[in-house]
């Protein structure tokens, strides 16, 4: 109650996102997930801040050494320092997650808002195409796309990352498209859209000024959760040996190479898997917190 009064007294205009920020500020869940994500992003941007060791230096004499004061997370089968590789692996995982999310949101949201706004045959065609993509099981679809794209064999690290991003985006865009389409259909019927049409606003203006700002929230929430899921998907594909692979360092690649030595060197699997879980969880928690903050009914 006192908070509300002080807000009124301040009399500062706040938009819906301002309100959401105000709610988020007081939630511990939000701060925990944000600090975890910031830590991961910092690791991805400046890995040298966290470790001075070289993640590509293999010392076979140290193979499968358990954690020690010298190497906090121990060494894996090839004699790589696991701590250094976990730090450097954050970059590939986060880059894949961020790029795949951007692709999914840009393609899905723009196609969805157009389908929702125009309706008719455009909506039918787009929705049926989306149904086709949804119908393909994710792993199967990714295997088909990645093996087809990579039929030649050796690709550089940038190309491998691009292929993985493309396959995740191609198989996941229908979800954000459906979310956007349904919110756009609801927004189209709103009175403020009618008022804008009565003023003679162009379809472009109605979409960008009236519908997009009012429809973006659910997609934003989805994208936060999806980012975590895509990092997990990258790990899944890498584990199966069709995603990222050497020389790219990623958590999925590490889990893949550690799986055969689980009984003799469990630390080689547990540390990258722990980081992966923490990152995915952080994004899911953030998405949850943002959803609650943006949805006035849950307040």
């Amino acid at each position: 109650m006192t908070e509300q009064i002080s807000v009124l007294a301040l009399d500062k205009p706040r938009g819906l996102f301002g309100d959401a920020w105000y709610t988020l500020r007081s939630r511990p869940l939000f701060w925990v997930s944000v600090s975890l994500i910031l830590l991961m992003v910092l690791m991805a941007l400046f890995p040298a801040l966290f470790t001075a060791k070289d993640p590509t230096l293999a010392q076979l004499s140290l193979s499968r050494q358990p954690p020690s004061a010298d190497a906090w997370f121990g060494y894996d089968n090839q004699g790589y320092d696991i701590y250094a590789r976990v730090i450097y692996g954050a970059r590939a995982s986060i880059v894949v997650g961020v790029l795949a999310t951007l692709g999914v949101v840009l393609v899905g949201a723009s196609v969805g808002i157009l389908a929702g706004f125009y309706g008719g045959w455009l909506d039918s065609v787009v929705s049926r195409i989306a149904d086709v993509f949804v119908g393909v099981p994710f792993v199967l679809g990714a295997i088909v796309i990645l093996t087809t794209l990579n039929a030649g064999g050796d690709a550089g690290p940038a190309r491998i990352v691009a292929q993985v991003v493309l396959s995740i985006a191609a198989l996941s865009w229908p979800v954000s498209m459906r979310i956007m389409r349904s919110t756009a259909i609801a927004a189209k019927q709103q009175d403020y859209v009618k008022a804008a049409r009565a003023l003679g606003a162009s379809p472009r203006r109605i979409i960008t000024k009236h519908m997009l700002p009012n429809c973006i929230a659910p997609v934003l929430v989805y994208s936060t959760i999806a980012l975590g899921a895509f990092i997990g998907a990258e790990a899944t594909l890498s584990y199966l040996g069709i995603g990222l692979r050497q020389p790219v360092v990623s958590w999925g690649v590490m889990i893949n190479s550690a799986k055969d030595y689980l009984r003799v060197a469990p630390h080689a699997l547990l540390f990258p898997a722990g980081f992966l879980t923490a990152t995915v969880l952080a994004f899911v928690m953030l998405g949850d917190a943002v959803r609650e903050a943006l949805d006035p009914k849950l307040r």
Partner: protein
Amino acid sequence: MAELLEVRNLVKHFPVTRGVLFKKTVGHVRAVDGVSFTLAAGETLGVVGESGCGKSTLAQVLMMLEPPTAGEALFEGRPMFAMRGNALRDLRRNMQIVLQDPYTSLNPRMTVGDIVGEPFEIHPEVAPRGSRAARVRELLDVVGLNPEHINRYPHQFSGGQRQRIGIARALALRPKVIVCDEPVSALDVSIQAQVMNLLRELQGEFGLAYVFIAHDLSVVRHLSDRVAVMYLGKIVEIGTEDEIYRHPTHPYTQALLSAVPVADPALRGQRDVIRLTGDVPSPIDPPSGCRFRTRCWKAQDVCAEQEPALVDRGGHPSACHFAEERSVVP
């Protein structure tokens, strides 16, 4: 008076479809079924009728938010529904709408300044870029809002204030006609009066013509020069405020008037209460002949066979075979 707007035999049917993959039209909702009226410059035409009689559909078709099924409307003598491009832009400048619900008619993500200033962005020729902020402040002042609140968001205002924002937006382009689609129905009674008075003041100041849609006869009476009474998509009686309220000839109008609460306790109990029985028939399958006959105490065989035309009967147009004056309210 010169006719600003002339509506001839306007029809709007919504198809009722069945089936998911193969849509089949199984009928039509006859929301507006042959409505004609004229509106002079500076005049207010009240449109009353109960829920579902097609009032709001009429507003939507007039604002060209929905295409008409048939019929014609002339704005300053030119057919509206054929307008495209610049002609349509001009029409939009001259005809604006105030919507019913002030909670949904303002974009929650835009500030008041953006909402009221949007007409100038869509029609940049009306106000040069530099003068827009000043024009928006002026408009807020005209509708009785504090111009300092230009950067606030709609949710920071009360219902009455929001409706004023909606009116300022409609007023921005200096239209000649404003269609008011139940502008006060969603407001408290005390706020209703304020908004009604504002609309009346604005009419005097800017020479506006209103098509004022409402389901409340007393609200319409306060503002209207002429009143049209609608029932199931048709106008059943149209006339001046005095003709409709003092000398109604259509039984439906008489029944509506008898339901208006009387404020004066001395007059209470003296009026002649007409109780209608039954429900409004479905607009998908309206009764033959006169649409009101199923609930009318005067109904005869002729009412089912012949549709009464809206022609002058006893001083003003009324669509009843047995139009007869009956003073309902003392």
